[in-house]
């Protein structure tokens, strides 16, 4: 099925051309772009009724070395998502051409949308986990760009960052889990891993694999406590919220759970973790939704809550749960997608989303109001809309948990009912409160229904809400059962029903509706009561706290050790050397051979060495530059003298020359140097420096002695002695080594000297030329941070150590 591959790649291939197309076609670009999702939607529709648990596949080697190939597989489960991605995608693209103003950069908008679409299709069709992860991350990036589309607003930038950080964190979880799966199961291909399921389940890595994978699913699907990014993502233009943040991307986590369930599921760990997180999320999301006054924020929390309802359905592993999950994915996409677009219309018309400033919209914009009402009632689970159908199934599934009912599953059910009751409350707000009562139109005088093109999406989606509510059987086989089969990897033949059947699920629905109605009648007191709840731990505060804490830690770390003083840095390095050598010596364990069978020291040598030591101390001690230079030259001269003593006249001569020249040069340079700064060190610091210096000297002495005692192999120098004359044509071995045997070294060193000479000339001349010119823009001092302390520190660095 290479067409499957092509269908995923098509949006990617076309995306880069969109900005250019926008420059040509202007605002009509949306209709041209819409061709892509519409044709893909038609393409995927062709699979309806043909796919169930058996996938159609495509495979192209990409990086076989790493086990990452372009392998795709589409089954009924993926098909459901693919239809949502392309179907809702088509509606959103058309809707957005009306929604976005004339000044918006539509080129970038549709570029991001197409990239997202391709990536999302990749997620739901990939058969290789790493490939899935790659697409997964691209959806996070596209989501980041789309949330930040109105990037001049601070809340957009902030929301985009938060969404990215949290979803990418989860993405890393998936990546790590994938690699662990590879370690255990020997492949990244899902189909291959399925055959190794026993090994995976038995592995000690099973628990981390599950938890890391679920981290990815929970973050993407905004499950508590990772739900905090979704409300922030509402800073995106409403079409984006409708598309990514309600209908498709946030369901990727659910998809992942459903996709991996046959491999990793079937264990209590899997089921209880997902169910517990889902149940808490249902409750928390609905609870927080009621507290909102911004319509989009309300919808965002409602999405959080609904996702929590769906997620556990794919962890249970029972047929009815799979069917319930599949049905609610579609149903939620229809009513929530419609609601977002409708809220966008209301916002567009009244210039507000604050529900305290909205009311009586039915009079001004009846079509919008009716559509909103139907969609909201469906979300509340009112008969005969599609929300009712799937909610019944969900309750039924919750009553038949895979490991039998226990106190936990009962708690999940109670949380779900309470969450549904609160859902009813906010759905009534959407359906009733803003549509009826006293007219309040926000900032607008006479809002009215939008043009037909903008209503197209909501009308079609609400049409589906009604159709799937009244006659769900139309989707039972080709969509619901097909998706459930794909998820279960075996054929599922479940039944949906839209006739209320007396029983426990219906009772739960009725309790939820009744409680919700009661709560809506006492909305103000409920709100007041809810506002009283001030949890001590707040996920947002944790997120902010981590960022702020790391920021402080960073400043502290840099301040503490990046003193800017060379002497500190040298002290650090010497300490590292001591520590490193100490550790190495301790670790090697073998005894040291430090025979001190040295030749006896002659009197002359002793004197020379004493002078060297005295000279070195004097260099450090003298407060006057000239005196220090003299002391330094004494050291050099004495070293040369030592060479003479050791019968190395060549070396002595070289050393003597170097000494004389450098002394002269330093003396010449001294003229231009400022006087030595006053010493300000504490006695302790001085003592430490002396200890360090002495230690460094002792260390080198130790190394020399150690080397001398451990001449383990004969030296190659014998070769030079023998071949200096025949091969090098000279009897002075040192010379022949320098210019012949190791001529490359000499060439390199000559280059060093040449560069040094060149650069002294360049530095001095260029410095003189540029002097007097403004050397750095005044407004751009080399400041690390934006606080005054670091400026002070940078100023302090000016003191040469």
């Amino acid at each position: 099925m290479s067409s499957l591959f092509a269908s995923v790649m098509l949006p990617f291939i076309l995306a880069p051309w969109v900005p250019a197309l926008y420059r040509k076609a202007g605002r009509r670009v949306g209709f041209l772009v819409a061709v892509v999702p519409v044709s893909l939607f038609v393409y995927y529709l062709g699979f309806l009724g043909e796919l169930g648990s058996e996938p159609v596949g495509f495979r192209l080697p990409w990086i076989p070395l790493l086990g990452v190939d372009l392998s795709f597989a589409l089954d009924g489960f993926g098909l459901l998502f693919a239809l949502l991605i392309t179907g809702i995608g088509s509606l959103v693209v058309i809707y957005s051409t009306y929604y976005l103003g004339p000044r918006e950069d539509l080129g970038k908008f549709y570029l991001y949308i197409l990239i997202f679409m391709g990536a999302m299709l990749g997620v739901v069709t990939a058969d290789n986990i790493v490939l899935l992860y790659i697409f997964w991350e691209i959806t996070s990036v596209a989501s980041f760009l789309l949330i930040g589309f109105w990037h001049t607003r601070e809340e957009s930038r902030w929301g985009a960052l938060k969404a990215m950080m949290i979803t990418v964190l989860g993405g890393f979880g998936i990546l790590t889990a994938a690699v662990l799966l590879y370690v255990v199961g020997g492949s990244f291909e899902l189909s291959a891993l399925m055959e190794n399921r026993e090994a995976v389940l038995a592995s000690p890595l099973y628990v981390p694999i599950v938890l890391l994978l679920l981290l990815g699913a929970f973050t993407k699907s905004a499950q508590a406590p990772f739900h905090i990014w979704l409300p922030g993502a509402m800073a995106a233009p409403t079409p984006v919220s409708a598309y990514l943040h309600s209908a498709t991307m946030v369901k990727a986590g659910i998809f992942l759970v459903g996709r991996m369930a046959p491999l990793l599921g079937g264990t209590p760990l899997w089921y209880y973790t997902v169910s517990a997180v889902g149940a808490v999320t249902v409750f928390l999301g609905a609870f927080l939704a009621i507290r909102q006054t911004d319509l989009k924020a309300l919808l965002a929390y409602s999405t959080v809550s609904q996702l929590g309802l769906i997620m556990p359905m794919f962890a249970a592993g029972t047929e009815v749960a799979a069917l319930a999950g599949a049905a609610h994915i579609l149903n939620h996409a229809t009513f929530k997608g419609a609601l977002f677009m409708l809220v966008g219309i209301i916002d567009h018309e009244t210039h507000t989303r604050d529900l305290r400033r909205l009311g009586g919209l039915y009079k001004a914009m009846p079509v919008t109001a009716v559509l909103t009402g139907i969609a909201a009632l469906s979300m509340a689970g009112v008969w005969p809309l599609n929300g009712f159908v799937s909610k019944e199934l969900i309750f039924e599934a919750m009553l038949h948990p895979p490991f039998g009912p226990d106190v936990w599953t009962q708690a999940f059910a109670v949380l779900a009912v309470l969450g549904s009751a609160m859902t009813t409350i906010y759905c009534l707000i959407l359906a009733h409160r803003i549509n009826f009562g006293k007219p309040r139109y926000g900032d607008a005088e006479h809002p009215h229904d939008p043009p037909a093109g903008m209503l197209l999406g909501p009308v079609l989606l609400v049409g589906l809400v009604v159709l799937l509510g009244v006659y769900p059987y139309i989707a039972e086989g080709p969509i619901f059962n097909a998706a459930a089969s794909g998820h279960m990897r075996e054929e599922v033949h479940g039944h949906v029903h839209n006739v209320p059947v007396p029983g426990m699920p219906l009772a739960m629905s009725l309790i939820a509706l009744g409680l919700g109605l009661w709560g809506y009648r006492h909305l103000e007191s409920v709100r007041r009561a809810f506002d009283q709840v001030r949890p001590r731990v707040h996920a947002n505060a944790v997120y902010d706290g981590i960022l702020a804490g790391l920021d402080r830690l960073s400043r502290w770390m840099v301040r503490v050790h990046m003193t800017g003083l060379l002497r500190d840095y040298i002290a650090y390095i010497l300490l590292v050397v001591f520590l490193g050598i100490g550790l190495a010596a301790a670790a090697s364990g073998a005894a040291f051979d430090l025979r001190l069978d040295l030749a006896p020291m002659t009197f002359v040598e002793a004197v020379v060495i004493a002078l060297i030591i005295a000279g070195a101390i004097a260099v450090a001690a003298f407060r006057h530059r000239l005196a220090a230079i003299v002391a330094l030259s004494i050291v050099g001269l004495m070293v040369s003298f030592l060479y003479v003593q050791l019968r190395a006249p060549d070396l002595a001569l070289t050393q003597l020359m170097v000494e004389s020249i450098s002394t002269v040069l330093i003396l010449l340079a001294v003229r231009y140097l400022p006087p030595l700064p006053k010493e300000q060190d504490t006695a302790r610091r001085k003592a430490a420096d002396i200890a360090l210096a002495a230690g460094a000297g002792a260390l080198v002495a130790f190394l020399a002695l150690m080397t001398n005692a451990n001449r383990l192999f004969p030296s190659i120098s014998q070769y030079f002695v023998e071949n200096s004359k025949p091969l090098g044509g000279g009897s002075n071995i040192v010379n022949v080594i320098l210019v012949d045997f190791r001529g490359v070294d000499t060439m390199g060193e000559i280059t060093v000297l040449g560069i040094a000479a060149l650069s002294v000339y360049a530095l001095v001349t260029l410095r003189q030329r540029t002097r007097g010119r403004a050397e750095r823009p005044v407004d751009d001092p080399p400041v690390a941070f934006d606080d005054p302390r670091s400026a002070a520190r940078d100023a302090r660095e000016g003191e040469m150590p």
Partner: protein
Amino acid sequence: MSPNGLALPVVLPMLTGIALILLPRRAEWQRRISAVSTAVGFLIAVALIRQVRAEGIQVLYVGDFPAPFGIVFVGDLLSTLLVALNMLVAAAVLWYAFLTMDPERERFFFYPLFQFLLMGINGAFLTGDIFNLFVWFEVLLIASYILLTLGGEPYQLQEGFKYVMINMLASTLFLVSVSVLYGTLGTLNMADMAVKIAEVKDSPVVAIASVLLLIVFGIKAAIFPLYFWLPRSYVAPPGAVTAFFGGVMTKVGVYAMVRVYTLLFGVDDGFTYTLLVWIAGLSMVVGILGTLAQMDFKRILTWHIISQIGYMVMGLAIFTPLALAGAIYYVAHIMVVKTALFLASGVTEKLTGTTNLKKMSGLLTTHPALGALFFVGGLSLAGVPPLSGFFGKFTLIQAGLAEGRYGIVATAVGVSLFTLFSMIKIFRTSFWGEVRHKAAADRAVDLRTYGALLGPLALLVAVSVGMGLGAQFTVGYVLESAHQLLQPSLYIQAVLGSGLGS
């Protein structure tokens, strides 16, 4: 084919540099000659890679003195790859320098110094002699020092001084360790040393020398805890120099580490692994921590260098073919991407006159192409698939988990999240937002110059994307290279096997 080609990456820049010194007033000619020479150098390096792939490790006995007595140049898959990357990055940076370098610096030997720097770096990659390695370190140190300070702005001099002093200390330590090794083993040829070290593996002298060399190369590579010279000195010089240093210089230290640990010392499961893995983890963490509070484009990038060196050391520590391949891949990736990002910061500075993130915003609106290039580069650095950074990270994670090294893998993954955070910070503050940076009017970077400035940046970003999409080839290459490194006998055989006979 004869192995004489191995000398070219050293000789060509040297001769070019000398020629350029003679043309101080002909900036135009300096540029042309530099460009041609660097491009030819790149092609030579590619030819060397092909030769090594076809015929195995290449050895050049300089002066035809047999190993281990004379100096040898050795080209294997790793060293020739790094030479090629060095030349590639150098070409991009030179391209950028042609457009941005001020005439004063051009007059005062910027281009010849740059060629000498290339000579030193290539020499360090290619030499098979430890003392000769020291010499090349000296060459690249002195050249880099002058490039850092050229122009003599006070901040440059102040930071350059620390840079050179710390590096002098490192050189001294290098010399001490070479002396210890020579005194003990009686040889300087690395292949010969490898043979002899294998015989006296447990000697504490070898252990001490290995740690000393680790410290020396660690200073060059800016690993934890030896990085203090880096974050500030790299901010000081002009954009082109910072870009090249940020991309290439520290990798010479990493290369040397990889070379001595694979060829000479090996990484055992105990002490060396523990040491390296802690260095890797702490480098990652400290480097990333350093970026978090920064609000300066270049400073964020420089702190990142430390963190990314950690990933390379991680691969070395784990020491399996896959891990080493990951480390090499990471080196290649960082050389390309880091340079690209520094170039992006340079272009941004040209446009806005600042690198302070708080003083610019809205660049995506005014300069979308730059925004797109930076965004892709930044994502690549953070390891977002399918760009080059992802495959480096992925390979390392795979290698780490296969060996059960969970701690370092967790660190690597966590740090890459914050790498992303810091890249996004730059993007959020300077590319998004209202157009607030100083009006382009007085900064007067005309459209053509701006377009040209994007050229080298686009080239490097394209290489990063290509490295990612063509991962089968790139990962295949580094894996092959890792296998070669983990069989030191190949290297030894190539150097000593035929050399002893001649």
